[in-house]
C-alpha cells in the first residue's frame, strides 16, 4: 500500500517541530532552572546547588513586582474579555460585510510592532504638546492633565495590545454557538440573560478560555507596556528579572525569579489546555 501507516507518519512528521521545541524551549528552561540553583552572582553551571536565590527572592521583596504583574494580568484579562464579548457577538456573524471589514481592521495592528503601537500611545497621551492634549488645547482652549507614566496608562497599554488575543478565540468560540439553539431559547421565552448563561456561554467557553488564558499569560510576562507607558510608577516582575540579568549581573537570582514566573504560568496554562478539545475548536 502506498499510504504510510498514520501511526508512524505522525511521529515522523512532528519530529522537526519537536526537535525545535526541545532545543529552543525545553533545554533553555531546564538550564534556567539549573542556574537558579547556583550561588548568587555566579555565571558557571558547576557550583554547588543551593536554594538561596529563592530565599533572597522572597526576602528582598520581589513579591511586590510579582503581585503587580499578577494584578495587571488579571485586570487586563477581565477588561479584555468584557470589551471583546460584544465585539465578538457582532463579528461572529457570518456573511456580514461590516463584520469582515472590522475583523480585518482589528487583526492588522497585531502585525504592527508593539514598539510602534506603544510609542504611538505615549505620543498620544503626552502632556502639553502630546497629540491629545495639544489637540484639545488648540481646538477648545483647555489644558488637560496626562495619565502618561502611571499605572493606569500601563493598564491601558496592556488592554490595547492584548485585546485582539481575547477577541479572535472568542469569535471562534461564538461561531460554534448553534444559531437555532439561541432562536429556540428565545422562542421558548428565555430572557437575554438566560440565553447568555444557558446557551451562549457554555458553547463559547473553549474560545473564551483560550482567549482569556492568552491575555493573562502574555500580560503577566509583559514589560514593554510598563516601561514605555508606566515609566517609574510601577515595577513589574519581568522588569525586575531584566534588571537582575543586565545591570545587576546576578543571573542566578534572575533565573530564580524567571522560574517563579514559569511556575505561575504553568499553573494557569496546564489545567486550561487539559480541558480544551483542540480538534473541535479549530475545525470549522
Amino acid at each position, binding site marked *: 500500500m502506498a499510504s504510510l501507516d498514520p501511526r508512524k507518519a505522525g511521529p515522523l512528521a512532528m519530529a522537526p*517541530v519537536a526537535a525545535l521545541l526541545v532545543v529552543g524551549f525545553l533545554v533553555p528552561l531546564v538550564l534556567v532552572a539549573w542556574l537558579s540553583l547556583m550561588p548568587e552572582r555566579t555565571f558557571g553551571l558547576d557550583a554547588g546547588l543551593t536554594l538561596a536565590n529563592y530565599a533572597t527572592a522572597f526576602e528582598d521583596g520581589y513579591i511586590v513586582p510579582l503581585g503587580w504583574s499578577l494584578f495587571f494580568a488579571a485586570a487586563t484579562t477581565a477588561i479584555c474579555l468584557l470589551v471583546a464579548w460584544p465585539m465578538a457577538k457582532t463579528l461572529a456573524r457570518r456573511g456580514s460585510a461590516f463584520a469582515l471589514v472590522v475583523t480585518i481592521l482589528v487583526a492588522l495592528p497585531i502585525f504592527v510592532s508593539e514598539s510602534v503601537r506603544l510609542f504611538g500611545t505615549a505620543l498620544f497621551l503626552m502632556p502639553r504638546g502630546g497629540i491629545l492634549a495639544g489637540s484639545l488645547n488648540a481646538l477648545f482652549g483647555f489644558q488637560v492633565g496626562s495619565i502618561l507614566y502611571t499605572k493606569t496608562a500601563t493598564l491601558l497599554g496592556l488592554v490595547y495590545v492584548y485585546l485582539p488575543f481575547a477577541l479572535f478565540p472568542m469569535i471562534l468560540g461564538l461561531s460554534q454557538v448553534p444559531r437555532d439553539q439561541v432562536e429556540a431559547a428565545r422562542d421558548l421565552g428565555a430572557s437575554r440573560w438566560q440565553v447568555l448563561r444557558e446557551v451562549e456561554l457554555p458553547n463559547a467557553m473553549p474560545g473564551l478560555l483560550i482567549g482569556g488564558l492568552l491575555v493573562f499569560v502574555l500580560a503577566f510576562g509583559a514589560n514593554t507596556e510598563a516601561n514605555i507607558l508606566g515609566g517609574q510608577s510601577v515595577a513589574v516582575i519581568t522588569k525586575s528579572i531584566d534588571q537582575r540579568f543586565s545591570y545587576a549581573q546576578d543571573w542566578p537570582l534572575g533565573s530564580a525569579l524567571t522560574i517563579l514566573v514559569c511556575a505561575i504560568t504553568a499553573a494557569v496554562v496546564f489545567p486550561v489546555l487539559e480541558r480544551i478539545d483542540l480538534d473541535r475548536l479549530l475545525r470549522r
Partner: protein
Amino acid sequence: MSARPETEPGLRPRQLFTALVVVLLYLPIVSVVLASLANTRYLIFPHRVWTLDAYAEAIGQYTTAHLHATSFKIALVVALISVALAIPGALAFARYRWRGRRLYQRAILLPVFFPQPVLGLALLVALSAAGIVPDWRTAVFAHLVWVVPIVTLVISIRLYGFDPAQEEAAYDLGATRLQAFREVTLPAIAPGIVSGALFAFLLSWSNLPLSMYTTGADTTLPEWLYSRMATNYSPQVPAIAVLSVAASALAVVAVLFLRALRRAVGRRRTTSSEASTLAHPARATP
C-alpha cells in the same frame, strides 16, 4: 424560520461600540503618523509647520536602510524555515491519527502561551551556556521557537477542512506518496501555507521581546525604535516607525496581489479549457 437580524435586541449599540473600539485601536498608529510630520526637536502638537522633512532625512540615512535590511533578513529566513517545519508539523497536528497526538497538540502551544521576554532571556542563558555569541542568526532561532507553533496552527486549520479521502483516491489511481502529496494535498492547503508564511514574516518583522535578548550586536527595527523613543527623540523616529509599518503593509499587499493574480490566471485557464471542450466535444471524452 429565517434569520431576523433587524429584530435581534442590542445589535445597533453593539455595532456602534465595536466601531468605537476599532477607532481607538488606530489612535496610537495615527498619532505616530501625525508626530512624524514635524520638524521640531520635541513634539509640540499641533505643529506650526507640517512637513515631510523627517521622511526625506530618514530615507537618505544609512541607519534606516540598515535596520530594514536586518529586520528583513531575519523575517524572510524565519518565514521560509517556519513553513518548512510547520507543514509536516501540521500534518501531525490535524491529519494523522497517532498515539501521542493529544500531547503533541498541547506541547506545541506552550511557547505561544508563554511570556516572550522570559523566553528571550531563557534563550540568552542557553546561548551563553553553549558559548554562542548572539547575532541576527540566533534571533532567527528565537523567533522560530515562537513562530513555528503559530504557523503550524494556521496550516492545521486549513488541513481540518481537507478531506483525506481525496488523498486515498490518488493512491487508488496509482499515485506515489510524494505525488499524492504534491498533486492533491499541497494545492489544497496552499492558501494556509501562504497565510502561514505571511504571518511568520510579519510576526518576526514586528517582534520586540525576543529580539531584545537574542540579536546581540545586530539591531532590528523594533529594537531601535524602542531604544530611541525614550532617549534621543526626533521626528525621524516616528518617521522610521511609519516606514517600517509601510514596509510590512507592502508585504501584505504583495501577497494579496499575487494571490489575486494566480486566481485570475487559474480562472482564465479553466474557462479557455472549457471553451476548447465546447468547441471540440470529441476531445473531452477520454
